[in-house]
C-alpha cells in the first residue's frame, strides 16, 4: 500500500450562463468502457446487497429503536457503539477520467488499479490508497526493459490523481452525511489499433454480406476532427455537443437511447434523439458525439439551420461556435482546443529506471531548456549538478569531482564524441530538440563505461515516434536552429535538424576597421543531425543517427610581435570538424531479455595554425561499437554482458611546441623549441569487454558487482577494473548506498608520442569511493547526500628526468609519477514539478590536490573549488508564462601570482617570476541569471519568446589576472558582464 499526499483541488469546468445542464443528456462515450447496460448491471449489483442490507437495516433500526427504549431504562453499556448502517451510498457527482500514461500506450500495456477512497461528509476525497495493481501487456507489446512494477508507467499515480478529483454526493447514515471508505477500480484499457479497427470493420461488412440489408445509419451532415491548438495533436475521447434552441416551442421526444456503437465514431441520429427537455421558456434539441482514437466525430441527419457546438474537455478552455448545416452538403470542421497550460511537465511521464548506481542524475530535454543562464543548452545544465565545478571564463568543459575536463567521458547514445562544446563554450554540439534526456554520473559509474577517471556524461537522443509532421524554429542572438520530424507509415520516424551561429556577423560588424586584429572568419559554428527510426514491431527498433559539427575561426593580427617578440606571420586559424553515423539495433522481446547493439562510423578532424610557425592537423577515422545483452530472469538477478571499443587510424602532422598541462604555470618560454611530427595511418585500438550482475540479496539490498577489461593498443597494456555498488532500502523513503571502483584512463595522445612525450607511459588510474543516503519524503521531493573520496595514481606529470632511447640520452618529458587526492561531500535537494514549481539546490564541498612527479609537497588542483552552490528554480504561471532563476556561489579558482619578471636577452622579452603554484585564490564568484518566457498558442502552431538575463546584477567576477610587459603591474580580468539573450521559438 502506498499512501500519498493531500488531494489537489478539483478541476473546475468553464461556466456558461443560460446553458442547459449537460447531465440531461446520457453520455454515449465511445471510450469510457462503461456502457449503459453495464451501468445498469453494476447498479443492480450494488442495489441488490443494498436492498438486502436495507432490509437488514430496517431490523437494526427497529432494534435500535427498541434498544434506545431499553437504554433509557437500563445502564449504558461499556462497549463502543456500533456505527450506524448506511442508508445511502456515495454517488459520483463529478467524474474525472484518468490520464492514460503515454509510455504505457506506446508499449501497449493496460492496467487495473484498485483503490480505497476515504470520502468525507462533504463528498470530497480525503485520501486515496492503492490496494492492488496489475498490468497486462498486449501480445507483441514492447517490454519495458529493466522494470517490472506498475509504478514504472505511472498507472498508480494517474489513477490516484483521477480519484482525487472525484466529487461525490456523500454517504448517509440515517439521513446524516458520514465519511466512508469505498473501493474504487480504475481500468486502463487500450484503445484498438487503427489497423484493428479497419480490419474489424471489414470483417463485419464481410460477415453481413448477402444477408438481408439493414437500414443505414443516416446521412452525415456535420463531421470533423478535434485537435489540440498549438500541437495539432488529435484528441480522442472528447465530447462534442450540438444543440439549437427554439424559444417557446416544445420538442417531442420518443426515440430510445442509442447504445454504444461498434468501433468508430459514435453516431447520433436525428431520428433517435437521446433526450430533450420541454420547458416553459424554451425547448431545445441536442445531440452528443465523442471523438474516436483519430479525434474524428460525425453527426447524422441534423436538420438544416444554425447549430451551436460546444466542446468541453478537462484541462482545456471551452470551445464554442455556431455552425450552419444545410441539407445538400456535408460540413467538415476542425476544432482546436487550447490547453490551459502548455507546460511540458504536465504531460511528462517519468518512468523511473531502477537505479543501480550510487549517483545518477538525469534531466529531460523539457527541463534542460528551462534552466536560466544555460541558454537552453543540455551540457551547460550539468554544471548545476553536484560534483561539477564551474568552468572558469564560461562554458567549454566538464570538471567533475576534482578531475580535469579530459578525464570525463562524453558520449552521445553511448558513442564517444571528441568535443562537446563549440568554440567559446557557449553552446554544445547537440541542440536540445534532438535530445530526449541527459544522464550524468559524477563517479562510481557502471562498468559499461571506462577510460575515464572523472565522470561520465551521456546524451540520449530522441526516440519518440512522430505523431505527424512537426518541428520547431529557434532564433536567438547567438544562433538559429531548425528541427523537423515526420512519420513514414506507422513504423518509421524521420528527423532532421540544423543550427548555425551568426556571432561572426555580429563581431565583424562590431570590430572597428582600424583594430589591430581583423576577423577573416569570425568564430562561427554549425551542427547538423538526421535520424531515422524503424520499429517493425514492439520488440525491435532499428535506428540510424547521423550528426556532425563544424567550427572555424581565422584571425589576422596587424602586429603579432606586440603579443610576443618571437611570433612571425600574422594569422591564427583553427577548425574542428567531426561526423558520426550511429547504427543501432535494440531488441527487447520481454522484460527478461534485452539486447543493444550500436556501431558508429566516425571522422574527426582538428586543424590549427598560428603565425607561420605552428601548425597542427590531425585526422582520425574510426569505428566504434557497443554491444550489451541483459538477462533478468527475476527481480533478484540480472546479468549484463557486453563489449565496447574503438578501432581506427589517425594521421598526424604537427609542428608546434608542447601543449600546456594542468599544473603548468609558465609555458612556451622558448617558442623556437618546436617539435615536428608526421605520422600516417597510426592504428588505434581500445577494446573493453565487461560483465555486470545485479543481485537482489533481499528485497531491500541490491548489490551490483562488475568487471571490465580494457586493452590499449597504443600502450600495449591490459587493465582490469573491478567495481562494486550496493544500495539498501531502509524503508519506503530511505536508501543508503555505497560504491567502490577502480578506473583506468590512457594518457593523452601527445603525452605518448615520440616527439612530444614519453611512449612508455602507463595508464593513469583512480580508486573511487562513495557512500551516501537518499531520502524521498514525498513523491516530489528528494534529498541525496554523498561523501566521496578519490585516490589518483600514475598521473602523467612533467619531469626533468632523462632516459636512454636507442643508445641516446633523451629527456623523459613525462612520467607516471604524479598522484592526487580528491575528497568531499555533495548535497542535492530536488523538487520535481508539482504545484507549478520545479527546482533544485546543489551544494558541493570538496578539496582536490595534486603532487607532481619528484615533488614532496602537494598543491591545489587547477580547478579546485571548495564551495560550489547552485540554486535553480522555475515557476509556471497562468497564460503560458514561466519564470526562472539560477543563482550560483562558487569559490574562486586557485591561481599562481607572478611576482615581477626577469628579462631574457636571448628572446628579447620578460619571463614572469611565479609565486607558489596555485598558492592563491581568485575572489568568490557569484551570479544570478534570470529567465522569463511567454508562449502564444495558435491553432496549428505556437510561438515562444524568451529572455535570458545572464549575470543580472552585473557582478564583476574575476576570472584571472593580466600583466604588463615586465610583470610589474597586474589587473583583473573580468568575466562576462550582464547580457541578455532574446530568442523566439516557433513550434508546429
Amino acid at each position, binding site marked *: 500500500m502506498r499512501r500519498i499526499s493531500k488531494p489537489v*483541488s*478539483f*478541476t*473546475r469546468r468553464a*461556466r*456558461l*450562463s*443560460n*446553458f442547459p445542464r449537460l447531465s440531461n443528456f446520457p453520455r454515449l462515450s465511445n*471510450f*469510457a*468502457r*462503461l456502457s449503459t447496460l*453495464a451501468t445498469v*448491471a453494476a447498479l443492480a449489483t*450494488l442495489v441488490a446487497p443494498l436492498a438486502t442490507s436495507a432490509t437488514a437495516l430496517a431490523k437494526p433500526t427497529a432494534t435500535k429503536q427498541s434498544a434506545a427504549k431499553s437504554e433509557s431504562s437500563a445502564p449504558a453499556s461499556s462497549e463502543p*457503539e456500533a*456505527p450506524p448502517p448506511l442508508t445511502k451510498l456515495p454517488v459520483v457527482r463529478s467524474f*474525472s*477520467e*484518468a490520464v*492514460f500514461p503515454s509510455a504505457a500506450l506506446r508499449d501497449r500495456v493496460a492496467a487495473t488499479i484498485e483503490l480505497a477512497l476515504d470520502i468525507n*461528509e462533504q463528498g470530497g476525497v480525503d485520501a486515496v490508497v492503492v490496494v492492488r495493481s496489475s498490468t497486462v501487456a498486449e501480445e507483441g507489446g514492447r517490454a519495458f526493459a529493466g522494470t517490472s512494477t506498475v509504478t514504472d508507467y505511472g498507472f498508480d499515480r494517474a*489513477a490516484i*490523481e483521477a480519484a482525487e*478529483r472525484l466529487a461525490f454526493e456523500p454517504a448517509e447514515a440515517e439521513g446524516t452525511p458520514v*465519511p*466512508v471508505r*469505498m*473501493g474504487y*477500480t480504475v*481500468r*486502463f*484499457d487500450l*484503445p484498438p489499433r487503427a489497423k484493428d479497427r479497419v480490419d474489424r470493420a471489414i470483417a463485419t461488412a464481410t460477415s453481413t454480406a448477402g444477408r438481408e440489408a439493414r437500414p443505414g445509419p443516416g446521412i452525415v451532415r456535420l463531421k470533423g476532427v478535434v485537435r489540440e491548438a498549438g500541437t495539432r495533436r*488529435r484528441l480522442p*475521447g472528447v465530447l462534442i455537443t450540438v444543440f439549437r434552441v427554439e424559444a417557446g416551442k416544445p420538442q417531442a421526444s420518443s426515440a430510445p437511447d442509442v447504445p454504444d456503437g461498434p468501433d468508430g465514431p459514435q453516431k447520433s441520429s436525428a431520428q433517435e434523439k437521446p433526450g430533450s427537455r420541454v420547458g416553459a421558456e424554451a425547448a431545445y434539441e441536442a445531440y452528443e458525439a465523442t471523438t*474516436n482514437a483519430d479525434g474524428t466525430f460525425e453527426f447524422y441527419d441534423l436538420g438544416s439551420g444554425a447549430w*451551436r457546438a460546444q466542446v468541453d*474537455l478537462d*484541462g482545456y*478552455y471551452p470551445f464554442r461556435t455556431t*455552425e*450552419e448545416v444545410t441539407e445538400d452538403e456535408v460540413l467538415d470542421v476542425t476544432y482546436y482546443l487550447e490547453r*490551459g*497550460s502548455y507546460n511540458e511537465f*504536465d*504531460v511528462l511521464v517519468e518512468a523511473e529506471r531502477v537505479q543501480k548506481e550510487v549517483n545518477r542524475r538525469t534531466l529531460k530535454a523539457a527541463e534542460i531548456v528551462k534552466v536560466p543562464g544555460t541558454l537552453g543548452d543540455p551540457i551547460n545544465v550539468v554544471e548545476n549538478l553536484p560534483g561539477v565545478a564551474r568552468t572558469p571564463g564560461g562554458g567549454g568543459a566538464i570538471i567533475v569531482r576534482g578531475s580535469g575536463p579530459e578525464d570525463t567521458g562524453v558520449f552521445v547514445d553511448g558513442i564517444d564524441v571528441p568535443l562537446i562544446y563549440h568554440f567559446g563554450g557557449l553552446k554544445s554540439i547537440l541542440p536540445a530538440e534532438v535530445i530526449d534526456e541527459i544522464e550524468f554520473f559524477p563517479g562510481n559509474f557502471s562498468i559499461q563505461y571506462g577510460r575515464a577517471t572523472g565522470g561520465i556524461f551521456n546524451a540520449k537522443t530522441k526516440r519518440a515516434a512522430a505523431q505527424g509532421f512537426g518541428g520547431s524554429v529557434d532564433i536567438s542572438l547567438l544562433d538559429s536552429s531548425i528541427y523537423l520530424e515526420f512519420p513514414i507509415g506507422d513504423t518509421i520516424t524521420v528527423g532532421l535538424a540544423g543550427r548555425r551561429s551568426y556571432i561572426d556577423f555580429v563581431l565583424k560588424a562590431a570590430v572597428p576597421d582600424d583594430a589591430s586584429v581583423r576577423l577573416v572568419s569570425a568564430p562561427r559554428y554549425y551542427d547538423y543531425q538526421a535520424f531515422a527510426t524503424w520499429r517493425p514491431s514492439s520488440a525491435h527498433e532499428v535506428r540510424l543517427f547521423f550528426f556532425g559539427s563544424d567550427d572555424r575561426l581565422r584571425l589576422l593580427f596587424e602586429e603579432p610581435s606586440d603579443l610576443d617578440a618571437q611570433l612571425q606571420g600574422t594569422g591564427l586559424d583553427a577548425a574542428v570538424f567531426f561526423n558520426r553515423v550511429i547504427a543501432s539495433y535494440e531488441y527487447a522481446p520481454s522484460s527478461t531479455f534485452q539486447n543493444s547493439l550500436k556501431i558508429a562510423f566516425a571522422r574527426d578532424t582538428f586543424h590549427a595554425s598560428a603565425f607561420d610557425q605552428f601548425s597542427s592537423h590531425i585526422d582520425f577515422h574510426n569505428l566504434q561499437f557497443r554491444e550489451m545483452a541483459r538477462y533478468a530472469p527475476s527481480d533478484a538477478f540480472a546479468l549484463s554482458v557486453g563489449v565496447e571499443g574503438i578501432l581506427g587510424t589517425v594521421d598526424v602532422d604537427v609542428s608546434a611546441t608542447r601543449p600546456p598541462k594542468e599544473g603548468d604555470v609558465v609555458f612556451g618560454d622558448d617558442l623556437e623549441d618546436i617539435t615536428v611530427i608526421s605520422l600516417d595511418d597510426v592504428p588505434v585500438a581500445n577494446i573493453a569487454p565487461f560483465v555486470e550482475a545485479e543481485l537482489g540479496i533481499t528485497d531491500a539490498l541490491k548489490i551490483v558487482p562488475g568487471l571490465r577489461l580494457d586493452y590499449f593498443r597504443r600502450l600495449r597494456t591490459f587493465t582490469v577494473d573491478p567495481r562494486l555498488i550496493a544500495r539498501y532500502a531502509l524503508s519506503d523513503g530511505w536508501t543508503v548506498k555505497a560504491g567502490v571502483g577502480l578506473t583506468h584512463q590512457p594518457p593523452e595522445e601527445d603525452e605518448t608520442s615520440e616527439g612530444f612525450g614519453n611512449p612508455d607511459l602507463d595508464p593513469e588510474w583512480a580508486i573511487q569511493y562513495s557512500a551516501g543516503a537518499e531520502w524521498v519524503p514525498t513523491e516530489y521531493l528528494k534529498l541525496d547526500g554523498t561523501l566521496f573520496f578519490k585516490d589518483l595514481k600514475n598521473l602523467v606529470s612533467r619531469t626533468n628526468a632523462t632516459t636512454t632511447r636507442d643508445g641516446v640520452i633523451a629527456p623523459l618529458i613525462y612520467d607516471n609519477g604524479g598522484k592526487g587526492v580528491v575528497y568531499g561531500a555533495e548535497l542535492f535537494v530536488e523538487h520535481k514539478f508539482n504545484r507549478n514549481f520545479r527546482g533544485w539546490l546543489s551544494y558541493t564541498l570538496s578539496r582536490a590536490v595534486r603532487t607532481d612527479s619528484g615533488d614532496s609537497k602537494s598543491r591545489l588542483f587547477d580547478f579546485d573549488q571548495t564551495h560550489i552552490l547552485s540554486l535553480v528554480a522555475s515557476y509556471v*504561471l*497562468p*497564460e503560458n*508564462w514561466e519564470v526562472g532563476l539560477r543563482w550560483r556561489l562558487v569559490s574562486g579558482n586557485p591561481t599562481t601570482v607572478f611576482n615581477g619578471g626577469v628579462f631574457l636577452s636571448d628572446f628579447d622579452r620578460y619571463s614572469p617570476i611565479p609565486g607558489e603554484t596555485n598558492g592563491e585564490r581568485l575572489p568568490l564568484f557569484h551570479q544570478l541569471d*534570470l529567465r*522569463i518566457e511567454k508562449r502564444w498558442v495558435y491553432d496549428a502552431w505556437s510561438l515562444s519568446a524568451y*529572455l535570458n*538575463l545572464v549575470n543580472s*546584477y*552585473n557582478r564583476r567576477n574575476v576570472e584571472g589576472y593580466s600583466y604588463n610587459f615586465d610583470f610589474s603591474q597586474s589587473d583583473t580580468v573580468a568575466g562576462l*558582464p550582464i547580457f*541578455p539573450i532574446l530568442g523566439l521559438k516557433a513550434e508546429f
Partner: protein
Amino acid sequence: MNSATSRLWLSAFVFTAFGAASMGGTRPANAQDVFEPAARQGYYLALGLRNGWGVVHDSDLGLLDLMPNLGLTLRTGQVVNDHLGLGIFIESGGGAGRKWLGSYGTLAMEGQYIPIANENLALRGGIGLAFLGVARRDEAKKRDDDPTGDLGTLYKLGMSYDWFPAYDPGDGSGGFAVTVFAEGQFLSAGDLWSSTVFVGVEASYWFGFDRSRLTLSEDQAFEP
C-alpha cells in the same frame, strides 16, 4: 447521536463498476479559470513620458551632478491572473545638470502586483540591462580620464493607476486607458551609478481576454 461529526470510518468495501477509465490519449488536468469581462485584462501596450530628478555618481569622482531627467517608455506585457502581470519594457532618456550630461537606455523585464483583484492600482518593479552614459557639459573642462559610460543593471520600483475613461462593462474585455505612475530607479553601470525618481503618464491599450476565457452570454459565447 450525531454521527456526522464523529470520525467514523465505515470499512464496508462497496465496489462499484463506475470507474473504468479508458482513454486513448494523454490529457493534462489543470483547472481552467474563466473570468468576468473587465477592462484591465489580457495584453497591454503602453507608451509614455516620464519626468524626474536624480543623481549621478562616479566611484572616483564622487557625485557628478544633480540633473532633471526626461524619458520615453514603451511597455508591453500581460496580466496573467487577478494579481500578477508580467512583461518587458524599453526606456530611454537623458538629462542635463549644471556640469554633466547624462543619458540612459534600458531593456528589462517587469512584474506588476495588483493588490486588489480587478482594480486598477498596481505596484510594479523591474530588472534588466541598462546603459548609462555621461559627458561634461563644458568641452573645455573635459579630461582624458573622464567617465564616459558603461553597461550595467537597472532596478526599478513604482506604482501606477489606470483610468479607463470610456469603458463600459457591456464593452466586454479590455480597453483604452490613461496611466499615471511614480517610480524610483537605480542604475549601476561599471564605476557609475544613478538613482532617479520619476513621475509620468502613459497611454495604454488593453487587448482583453479571448472569449474562451470569459463568462459571456450565450449569444456572445457562440458567435461563429
